[in-house]
């Protein structure tokens, strides 16, 4: 290690030798690359260093580095109680993510993280919870949904709404079906358009909210998806009476350093990588109304 090293504190549970440069990625090996939908895949990664574990909170993200190609911010979609396995669900949309899509088992990627503030699940203790995911908004929420299942008795009613473009764009479809059959929380899926082989709901996610049962004043909401979907959902929740400070949304901006230095992810007064990505709607509402921020 170079002389300008420092201990990267807090994030690296279980790694006793974690004295390293903040930009230095840790090697992870692809165990599995699962095709979720035509353009979305899940990478299951194992640490190359024995005993390496990555403790994280649902909603946090990693910088995933494909050597020789580049680095991309990707939320963690795995189980927080299994830090020995790292899971990322990615949509292939650009140079880096398309290259990641082609990775075979045994390939190595670099990981920096986890970064940012996740979903504040502890703040929802004793309250009703509404989770709204749009498209690829489900993967960043999945770790927290696992937590809610595990700590189910701590919360009141739990409603989950998951929307996607078409039925074939629903990620984790089998797992979502399993969640529905567990009947521990109410889960609705909806798509923007479908053929006759789809017997579920069709319509944007906000159309499912009137069906949800929760006490607005005692509800915490976690919303993740395309920005316009989050804005409309947050507005609908606020209109229903959920306090804006209890509505959390996950912002996405162009993360580069992920350490709050470079400013690429600035959103108004916040650096999304450092202050977010999960932020209260109360603070974001004025900015979400401004175009091209």
């Amino acid at each position, binding site marked *: 290690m170079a002389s300008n090293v420092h201990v990267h504190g807090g994030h690296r549970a279980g790694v006793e030798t974690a004295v390293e440069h903040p930009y230095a990625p840790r090697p992870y090996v692809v165990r599995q690359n699962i095709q979720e939908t035509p353009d979305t895949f899940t990478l299951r990664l194992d640490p190359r260093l024995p005993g390496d574990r990555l403790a994280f909170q649902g909603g946090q993200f990693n910088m995933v580095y494909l050597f020789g190609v580049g680095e991309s911010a990707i939320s963690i979609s795995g189980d927080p109680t299994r830090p020995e396995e790292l899971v990322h669900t990615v949509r292939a949309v650009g140079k880096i993510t398309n290259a990641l899509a082609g990775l075979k088992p045994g390939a190595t990627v670099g990981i920096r993280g986890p970064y940012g503030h996740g979903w504040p699940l502890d703040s929802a203790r004793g309250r009703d919870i509404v989770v709204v995911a749009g*498209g690829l908004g489900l993967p960043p929420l999945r770790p927290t949904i696992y937590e809610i299942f595990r700590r189910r008795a701590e919360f009141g009613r739990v409603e989950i709404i998951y929307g*996607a473009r078409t039925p074939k764009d629903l990620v984790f479809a089998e797992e979502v079906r399993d969640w529905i059959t567990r009947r521990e929380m109410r889960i609705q899926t909806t798509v923007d358009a479908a*053929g*006759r082989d789809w017997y*579920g709901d069709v*319509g944007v996610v906000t159309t499912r909210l009137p069906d949800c049962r929760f006490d607005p004043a005692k509800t915490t909401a976690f919303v993740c*998806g395309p920005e316009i979907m989050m804005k409309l959902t947050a507005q609908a929740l606020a209109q229903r009476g959920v306090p804006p400070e209890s509505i959390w949304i996950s912002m996405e901006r162009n993360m580069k350093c992920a350490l709050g230095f470079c400013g690429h992810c600035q959103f108004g007064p916040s650096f999304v990588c450092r202050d977010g990505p999960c932020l209260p709607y109360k603070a974001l509402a004025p900015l979400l109304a401004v175009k091209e921020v």
Partner: protein
Amino acid sequence: MNGPRNEAIADQVAHHPFFAGLDPVLVYEMVAKAEERSYDLGEMLVREGRPAEEFFLVLDGKVALEVGAADREVITVETIGRGELLGWSWLVPPYRWRFDARATKPTQVIAINAATARYALAAHPAFAYQFLLKFLPVIAERLENTRVQLLDIHGV
């Protein structure tokens, strides 16, 4: 259908949240020929191009609104569920359905006769205005939802 059965249905309509606040006597007049119906899974409620002779309050189940053309598969663009209102083609000339509606679950509805409803609205303009103040937000909300769908927000 007349008599007590029909009265019970009219009563049910009058107590529906959508009709809340409207003059119940005129609601009764408007829905005098309403009837309860059941549709099996896959059964069509309405077909595009046919006269819109009624509109529906969905009591239970689910209805898919479909559009299609000869050169492409049928696409469901919206689903209507319990407690929701189905159809406004009955209110707008030429009073023909603009889409197909198919039950995607066993579905119970109250079918409200369009001619009777239009007659009641025409005869009582103040009531018609109040009714439209209730009806327009439903149309506006669906228009907004359609705009969001058109944005293809989940697309890349």
